[in-house]
Structures are given as C-alpha cells and as structure tokens.
C-alpha cells in the first residue's frame, strides 16, 4: 500500500496514495494506524486527497483507527475528502463521528 507518513510538529500525517480503499487494502491501513498509536503517536491526521473510492471495509478501517485513538487518549482526524468519498461518510452518518477538514493545513490548524 502506498502511504506517505510525515511528522508535523502538531500531528502525524498519513497520506493515502491509493485510488481505492476497499476490502483488498483496508486491513493494511488499519494495522498501520494501530501500530502508530501503539508506538506512542497521539494525534494522527489522515489525508484522503488521492482516494477516489471508499467502501464499507475502508470506512471500517478508519473507524478502527478512531477507536484506537480513543483507547490511547489521542485523536484521528481526516482531511481533503473527494465529494463521492465524503458522501459515503454522510450516508453512514460517520461525518458526525470524525472531525473532517477541507484541507490538511486546516486539519493541522485544529490542533
């Protein structure tokens, strides 16, 4: 899976450079987020700018990350969702669960 992970002074940014987040690759991002929280990172911002498609497995992987954040007294926020991806969060009401920002810079400014 093509992930770009960078440490900002406010949060760890995970850029998902995959067109699809589905049952084929969602377990990988789930494990990666879990590992990063277990390694002691507190604030993670996931940038979805390059993700054109998400299914229920992809949503589930991010929910898992959100729960991991809560367990570790941290946060998992999302940025730069494409319109169709955002509509999936709205349809499943997950837009009420996650803090979602139009851009990564706005996400970072929230910390």
């Amino acid at each position, binding site marked *: 899976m093509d992930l770009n992970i960078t440490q900002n002074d406010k949060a760890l940014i995970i850029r998902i450079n995959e067109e699809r987040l589905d*049952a*084929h690759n969602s377990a990988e991002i789930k494990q990666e987020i879990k590992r990063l929280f277990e390694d002691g990172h507190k604030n993670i911002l996931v940038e979805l700018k390059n993700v054109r*498609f998400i*299914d*229920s497995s992809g949503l589930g992987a991010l929910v898992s990350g*959100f729960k991991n954040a809560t367990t570790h007294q941290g946060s998992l926020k999302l940025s730069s969702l494409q319109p*169709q991806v955002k509509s*999936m969060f709205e349809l499943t*009401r997950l837009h009420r669960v996650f803090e979602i920002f139009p851009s990564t810079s706005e996400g970072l400014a929230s910390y």
Partner: protein
Amino acid sequence: MQNNSIELNIKVPNQTKYLSLIGRIAEDIAIELDRFSGDKETLAYHMNLVLTEAMTNAIKYGKTDEEGESVHILITISEKKLFIRIYDKGQGFDINEIPSPDFEDIQENGRGIFLIKSLMDSVTYIRHPDGNTLEMVKLLS
C-alpha cells in the same frame, strides 16, 4: 434480447485484488448509459460500490462455484432497469435479518448491506437448493 439491451456475464477469481476490475467495469457501464438521465458520475460511483460490496460478501461468505474459486456476476440492462445478480454457493443469509448500523454505538463492521440497500431501488437475496442469488435493481428513469 432487445436491440438496446446489454448483458454482461462475468466470472472472476474470488480474490479481493479483482474488486477494482469489477468496479471499473461497473463505472464504465454507468458512464455509457445514454438512457439514464440523472447524474452519471454518481451512478458510476454507486454501481462501483454495490458491486464491490456484493463481491466482497461473496468472497467472504460464499463458496461461489463448484471449485469455490470464482465469483459469478451477471449484469443486465434493459430500457428502464439495471439488474446486478451475484451468485454464490455458501450457506446464505436472510437479508431482512441484517440490522441497519447503530449510528450511536459506532462499530467497525456492518455497513455493506446497508450501503447496498441505500443505493439500490430493490435488493433481494434468494436461497436456492443449489446456491444463492443476490439481486440488486436500479431504476433508470
């Protein structure tokens, strides 16, 4: 078959790496549908999603043919309706028994069938002695 009917009969190995291929086929069909007057980009995404969800279910829960090694998908488009049928040979399930997700107690799983039901006009899952069929219908007008 009517002149303007389209029928695609697809068999792919029951592996998740083929989800993107099936998703692309679904999107291409939607974009080419002159008879659909709505937003084709949205229809394309929705077709991609319901096929991805249904195929993932078939891979997870169904032994999908004699060898249990492939997923069989039939897409039929008539003047006014788009049918997607996915066949499996697993134990099957009662689609009406699957609850909607609990929007207050957030769980990791359990959104696949909800998404399919939300985006299609009719969804049935029929259990036959020799296998099961998930049929999804989208009205085009």
